[in-house]
């Protein structure tokens, strides 16, 4: 098993312009690549058997002022996962969609947009809300979002330990 | 007043209707109503002259009770469906011809029911077949018309064979006399029985001949479907009646093998009836088109009628004859209501409709009463007839046929409920928000038919009296009524009392309901959706694949459907072969054939 992963890693290394690679477990490895090479990488990986896009997600690297986009692909035949990582600019979080490679990416990109505010060019539906039914603040999974403030603003807190029933219209029951 | 006068009057009126229709087809359509009403009145007057003989040109007629009974049913159906005609004139390609054929087919049925000789019977029969063929093609399918004609032709041609055979044996064409010549010739009687009955079977849609029915009923013009199902199908029952009364099948086969006292040939036909009950029911349950569903229900109900009439006794015969009326009325009503829905919404597909009750409450109520009757639930007409048939079957102990009858009767709950639920109940689609109730003109036939259904259900005496007359005419034991109670050997039924007690129960329930707090009206969309928000009514409407589990069980197609198609393909193949063998453009081929023929003939002649 390790062999086939090594083979694949070697193959990937040969073909793609890999900045950095990392073995995570004996069935999983990660590669960091340039922002511009992602589509080539995904296409290639798909062609060698990584036919399932398991998820697209994002990490807010606020210290580096970067967003790291993460694509996890699965090879059903070998049981391997590959994690493709790339960094994009945090100030202008925009990237190109991979819908044309993996049509299912439509919803993952939507989710990433909703929670991190990354826009995906070429995927118009990514601007629509997905999980949060109504949202009126900066995307909630960004590191600079403070949930406590939001919660205080939105949801009323119980202010006394004595009251059993809530005050209704100011009238004490 | 003689029958000939009536016939000529009607013919003249239909020609007038045609001429009027040429000028203004809507006015002509109103003429069809008037003419059929005149027919109804004239026929009613003719009741006094039963027994009259009449003849004109090559036609001879005899006014009989049974003929009168059948034609009354027919005229009622024609009259009530005629009310829809004016609304469909715009949609017809030949409106004037439609009006003419509508009336001519009516005349054809009347002439057929009063026919005294085979030729008259056959000519009027064919008149109805052709006129209805030409009407059906004005609907949405030419193929249905074609299939209808072919199946009808199979029936009528085979019957013509039987008629001529009888004529050859007896030397007379008079129906009541001719069959007597068959006594003592069991083989001939057997051939005549099956061949003569075939027209009836094909018309009433009995099992192998039922294919035309859903096609024709489903795609005929909406105004003609009630007539087809309520009326024309019943012509087959008349043939069945002749085969047991004039033909006296029971005496003819008295020496043959019997099953529970029923001669085997009759039993075979009854089994066919039973099969068509099952097939009709199963197929009706599976339909999505409301009209096709009702058409298959006609197949099933045709089975009941056939079984009832063929039993030819006091009980089941009365049941069959009564079922003829109650089904004619119920099915005409149901088709009329569906026609009105189609008129307002433009479709008869159940999966595209829903919630019509909120727009057409009257139509809904009428349909409800019709299907209660069709399913044979008291206190409507259908119950009495089914009760009589079931009691009759129990009397004879015909287990398998009864099993089919039970299947049809329970299955009918399923298929009548489906349009009720999918078309009228459930969610109203936004596109049908502006649908209007039927206009007054369309409501008239609905009221008339509904009243008739109720009357028959509560006071079946009205019809059973006539049936008793028919039974007397046919020489079998008459059905007995004591007051409102039907008294038979193995049970009694007082429909009036059932009705009153039902009313009593309803009253108690109503009182409890009113005594409790008034309910709050909520919208249709405010329903339990597992707390999920649904804003699309179509998604909350359960109408396609209504009986999914049942459809899964009956998924396997049954072979008869393709039989006709296969035969047609075979004929084409043989035709192709003949053409390619004999119609070659090369003269050498022909000369080759000449030599072959010469050789064969020569050898044949020499040997």
């Amino acid at each position, binding site marked *: 098993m390790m062999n086939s992963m090594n083979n694949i890693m070697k193959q990937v290394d040969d073909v793609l312009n890999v900045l950095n690679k990392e073995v995570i477990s004996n069935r999983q490895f990660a590669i960091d690549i340039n922002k511009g090479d992602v589509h080539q990488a995904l296409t290639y990986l798909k062609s060698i058997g990584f036919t399932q896009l398991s998820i697209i997600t994002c990490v807010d690297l606020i210290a580096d002022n970067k967003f790291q986009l993460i694509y996890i692909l699965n090879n059903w035949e070998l049981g391997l996962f590959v994690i493709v990582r790339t960094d994009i600019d945090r100030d202008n979080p925009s990237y190109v969609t991979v819908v044309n490679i993996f049509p299912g990416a439509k919803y993952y990109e939507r989710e990433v947009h909703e929670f991190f505010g990354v826009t995906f060019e070429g995927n118009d539906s990514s601007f*629509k809300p997905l999980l949060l*039914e109504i949202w009126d603040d900066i995307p909630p999974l960004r590191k600079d*979002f403070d949930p406590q403030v939001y*919660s205080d603003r*939105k949801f*009323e807190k119980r202010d006394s330990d004595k009251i059993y029933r809530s005050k209704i219209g100011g009238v004490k029951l | 007043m003689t029958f000939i006068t009536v016939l000529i009057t009607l013919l003249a009126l239909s020609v007038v209707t045609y001429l009027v229709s040429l000028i203004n087809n809507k006015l002509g359509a109103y003429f069809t109503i008037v003419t059929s009403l005149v027919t109804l009145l004239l026929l009613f007057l003719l009741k006094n002259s039963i027994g009259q003989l009449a003849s004109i040109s090559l036609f001879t007629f005899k006014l009989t009770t049974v003929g009168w009974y059948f034609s009354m049913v027919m005229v009622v159906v024609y009259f009530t469906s005629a009310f829809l005609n004016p609304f469909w004139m715009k949609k017809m390609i030949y409106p004037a011809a439609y009006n003419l054929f509508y009336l001519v087919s009516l005349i054809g049925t009347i002439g057929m029911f009063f026919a005294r000789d085979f030729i008259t019977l056959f000519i009027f029969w064919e008149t109805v077949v052709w006129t209805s063929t030409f009407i059906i093609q004005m609907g949405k399918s030419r193929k249905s018309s074609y299939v209808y004609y072919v199946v009808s032709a199979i029936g009528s041609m085979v019957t013509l064979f039987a008629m001529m055979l009888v004529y050859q044996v007896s030397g007379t064409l008079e129906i009541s006399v001719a069959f007597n010549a068959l006594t003592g010739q069991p083989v001939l009687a057997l051939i005549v029985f099956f061949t003569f009955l075939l027209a009836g079977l094909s018309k009433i849609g009995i099992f192998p001949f039922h294919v035309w029915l859903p096609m024709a009923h489903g795609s005929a013009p909406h105004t003609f479907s009630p007539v087809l199902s309520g009326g024309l199908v019943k012509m087959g029952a008349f043939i069945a009646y002749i085969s047991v009364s004039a033909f006296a099948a029971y005496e003819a086969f008295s020496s043959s093998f019997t099953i529970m006292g029923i001669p085997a040939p009759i039993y075979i036909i009854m089994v066919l009836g039973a099969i068509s009950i099952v097939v009709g029911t199963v197929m009706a349950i599976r339909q999505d088109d409301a009209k096709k569903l009702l058409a298959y229900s006609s197949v099933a109900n045709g089975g009941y009628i056939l079984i009832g009439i063929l039993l030819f006794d006091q009980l089941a015969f009365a049941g069959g004859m009564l079922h003829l009326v109650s089904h004619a009325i119920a099915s005409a009503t149901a088709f009329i209501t569906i026609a009105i829905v189609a008129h307002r919404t433009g479709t008869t597909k159940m999966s595209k409709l829903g919630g019509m009750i909120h727009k057409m409450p009257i139509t809904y109520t009428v349909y409800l009463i019709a299907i209660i009757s069709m399913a044979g639930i008291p206190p409507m007409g259908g119950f009495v007839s089914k009760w009589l048939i079931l009691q009759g079957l129990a009397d004879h102990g015909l287990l398998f046929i009864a099993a089919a009858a039970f299947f049809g009767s329970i299955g009918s709950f399923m298929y009548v409920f489906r349009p009720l639920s999918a078309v009228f109940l459930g969610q109203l689609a936004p596109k049908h928000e502006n649908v209007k109730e039927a206009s007054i003109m369309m409501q008239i036939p609905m009221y008339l038919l509904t009243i008739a259904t109720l009357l028959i259900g509560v006071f079946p005496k009205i019809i059973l009296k006539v049936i008793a007359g028919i039974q007397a005419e046919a020489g079998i034991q008459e059905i007995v009524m004591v007051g409102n109670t039907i008294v038979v050997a193995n049970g009694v039924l007082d429909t009036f009392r059932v009705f009153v007690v039902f009313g009593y129960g309803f009253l108690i329930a109503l009182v409890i309901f009113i005594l409790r707090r008034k309910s709050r009206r909520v919208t249709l969309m405010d329903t339990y959706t597992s*707390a999920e*928000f649904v804003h699309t009514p179509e998604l909350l409407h359960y109408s396609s694949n209504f009986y999914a589990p049942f459809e899964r069980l009956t998924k396997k197609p049954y072979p008869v459907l393709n039989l006709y198609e296969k035969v047609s393909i075979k004929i084409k193949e043989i035709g192709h072969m003949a053409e390619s063998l004999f119609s070659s453009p090369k003269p050498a081929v022909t000369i080759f054939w000449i030599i072959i023929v010469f050789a064969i003939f020569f050898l044949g002649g020499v040997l």
Partner: protein
Amino acid sequence: MVLENQDNRNLWEKIGDYFSANSIWMKWYCTGCGAIELPPTMTSRFDMERLGMGPMATPRQADVMLITGYLSTKTLRRVIYSYEQMQDPKYIVAFGSCTINGGVYYDSYATINQLDKYIPVDLYIAGCMPRPEAVMNAFADLISMIKKGQANGWRHYQENYEWYKKNQLDSLEEVIIHDEFHE
């Protein structure tokens, strides 16, 4: 526990409350972790049916709604929708600290903190989570409250509908969501 005790019911209402108290059908809204405490409450160990209580399939049929834990804004919308589909008289029993003050989700951007701002809660059961004994005890309390005519949350909701609606809208902006997935 009870703040005021004024009983101005007429005889019919008292009889009605007697029936209501002895036949409580519940719709338990399995929003949070507390739902798992209900099977033991229902089955042979504690046998809720002794009290005339039993599970029901839909809010239309149910008398009491059990909120078994934290509520996110999304679920709150559904809870309100379901609650409004229930027939009067109707009661709400809320489980656990999350419904009282947000519990461990006090600072979540998606979870509400105080349920009775949005819908009237007749009875809270404290604990994280309350054990079946506590649940049974609460049901007994609920029954006695109904008998005495004190479980009037549904009436408060009717009378102070605007107040509740305002709170709901403040936090949720829209209760009945219209979006791509619901049209």
